[in-house]
């Protein structure tokens, strides 16, 4: 076996460092820099609505975050959207994936049509649904009235507004879940089903004991992605309700936005951002650990 000299290894190492330098530099500028600023600003009582200099305030802003009822309201709304969204989208996605996993004519066209909502820009989607939900001119109420119903104030009624946002999110993201689960279904080897068949398993037993366990990694992926995305949900909420009526639909990211660009509370909003980052990191770590453990097994 030919030995590689130490000099060559050192040279290669240097070269490797050199070629990664631009990416590391860009990362420092775009990620580490702003994060460092966020962390720094979170320790200051700093408002940009008055010409007063920032004042070092230790953990004052973090204390405020946990005492802020509006933060907890936004946290509750985000959590409701997240839990309801993930459960509904997973069930619907699984059903649609099963249907698409069969062979039928125009299957490719069906998949393309189902995938369309994912491609719509969130802002455009928000405006479209605003029209759909319109009390007087909206097609949704029109259909409900045709069927003898009374129609509703979908985005103006505080009892319905969050549900209306959940519907929009489900409409847009169920196809994503479907596609992931469909890929999962298609990767399950046919032999596994044949073996289950030979062992005399019923359809339900095959689904419970074979399909679901083999789809589990895909579900973990779906839940991880959807958790992160719903945690950041902004555009549809901003366009449809602006967080209202009152703060009935205000989510964490919308509250952070309002706190920054409407109130210009630099220190407080930074602390709000850090708190969210910690929550998100914990959630992501749980899921990543689950995925890694599965892989090792």
């Amino acid at each position, binding site marked *: 076996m030919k030995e590689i000299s130490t000099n060559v290894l050192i040279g290669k190492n240097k070269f490797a460092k050199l070629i990664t330098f631009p990416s590391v530099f860009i990362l420092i500028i775009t990620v580490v820099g702003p994060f460092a600023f966020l962390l720094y600003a979170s320790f200051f*009582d700093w*408002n*940009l*609505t*008055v*010409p*007063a200099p920032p004042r070092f305030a230790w953990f004052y802003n973090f204390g405020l975050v946990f005492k802020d009822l509006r933060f907890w309201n936004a946290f509750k709304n985000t959590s409701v959207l997240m839990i309801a969204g993930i459960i509904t989208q997973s069930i619907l996605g699984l059903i649609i994936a099963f249907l698409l996993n069969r062979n039928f004519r125009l299957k490719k066209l069906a998949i393309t049509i189902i995938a369309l909502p994912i491609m719509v820009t969130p802002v455009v989607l928000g405006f479209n649904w605003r029209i759909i939900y319109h*009390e*007087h001119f909206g097609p949704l109420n029109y259909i409900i009235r045709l069927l003898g119903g009374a129609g509703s*104030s979908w*985005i*103006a*009624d*505080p009892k319905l507004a969050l549900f209306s946002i959940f519907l929009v999110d489900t409409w847009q993201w169920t196809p994503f879940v479907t596609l992931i689960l469909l890929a999962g279904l298609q990767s399950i080897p046919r032999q596994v089903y044949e073996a289950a068949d030979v062992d005399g398993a019923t359809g339900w037993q095959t689904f419970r004991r074979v399909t679901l366990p083999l789809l589990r990694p895909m579900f973990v992926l779906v839940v991880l992605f959807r958790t992160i995305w719903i945690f950041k949900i902004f555009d549809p909420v901003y366009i449809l309700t*602006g*967080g*209202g*009526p*009152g*703060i*009935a639909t205000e989510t964490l990211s919308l509250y952070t936005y*309002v706190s920054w*660009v*409407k*109130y*210009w*509370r630099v220190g407080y909003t930074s602390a709000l951002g850090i708190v969210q980052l910690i929550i998100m990191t914990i959630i992501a770590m749980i899921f990543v650990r689950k995925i890694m453990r599965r892989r090792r097994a």
Partner: protein
Amino acid sequence: MRKVYLLILITSLLLIFSCSMLVQGQTKFNDVTITAFCDAGHNALPFEWYADEFKKAGINVKLVTAPFGNVYEKLKSEFVAGTGAYDVIVFFPLYLGEFAGMGYLKPLDEYAEKYDPHLDDIAAGFLKLYDYYAGKLYTLPYDGDVLSLYFRKDLFNDATEKSNFKKTYNKELVPPVTWDELLDVAKFFTRKSGETLAGQKLVSDFYGYSFLAQRGSFAFAWWLAEFASRGGTYFDKDMNPMINSEGGVTALQRLIDVLPYCPPDVFAYGYDELKDALVLGRTAMCLQWPCIWKKGNDPAQSKIVGNVGVTHVPGVMKDGKLVYRAPMPCGRILAVANASKNPEAAFYVAKLLSDDFSLANVSTTETGLDPYRKSHFNNPKAFSGFAPEKEAAEYLAAIDNNLTYGFPDLNLPGSAEYIDILELHLGKAYTKELSPKEALDAVAKEWDSITDRLGRANQTRIYGELLQSWKEVGLID
């Protein structure tokens, strides 16, 4: 011979050059380019209409717009970042205190002296409250907003409706003068689909009243209308919130009491929805900005042409006298950014729009801009394209009267946050999440904390100056 030709050529060139210099000398500015900012939509149109006129003065104007609800964020972001992106800006007086106080705007007294934007022609209340800050001229008016009561003349003049109203309430059916009367009239006109209204069978539900409740659209002004007429102000002289006083709670309770007589989606009503509720024939009355009269008389936009009545906002009886205050929400103003590289040209454009072209801007249905100059109020002929001159004169007189008894927005540093918190809790009271008293107490608590955070001493001083200017124009005692 060649020398003669050469001489003729040189002389001709010199002549052409001198002529061009002469023409250039006639323009005020030397082909400068400035950037203007305005909220998007019909109110930004004048910047495009007069582009050639600006060019004649040697100014090229690049227009940047942002949605109505994002004006504050957009401008503040640019100011904070110090980009110097805009030269002349259109914004709302609600933010004047903050923008001028933070040094984002250029004082205009010097330019006003040079170019004379006819300040004495501007309605006194508007000039004093929305154009001056801390004794300096910072802005010129662009849109003279004030709320008035608009109503369906055909319904109020209908003999059957009049007779039915008299039978029910034992009084004449007239546009409500007090807030108590407004509730009665709103209730009277609210009908279900299939019932009859002014001799016509209704094909959809009809409502007596509509108001603006959408957060971020100056919704607080619909509550302020009664609160101010009850003598309310935002704070006392020591910056203690006054909104949760008895007048504030009564005003909020009134809006909750009138909800059954409003369209069910009224919580989502912004400017367009409220305008449409009246001009598309779904409601009998509303408080609105003046442009609704123009839009309501435009056959392309309205189903009630010729039937838009206007009068002063309702009030309360005090010692046998009617007291009313008309909120002045929104009300666009033109200012010059302190970071502008061409402040003089920017001011000149502002002056042309606020003064020279203003009558045309406020008297067309194509904009939502409203009168603010004496020369507008005294010129009903300019508005006679929508209605007979007599009616136009009545409309202008009603606006002028409401401006005389106008009540200003809170133009204090942090006003965007103060007002957002107020609107948020008004919404909570509308949806019965909180009682009116609980909602306004919560606002007072939050306002106190905002004041402390922004510096109580400084806020008290600035608010004291505002109170002084309100006293000078007779708004408060």
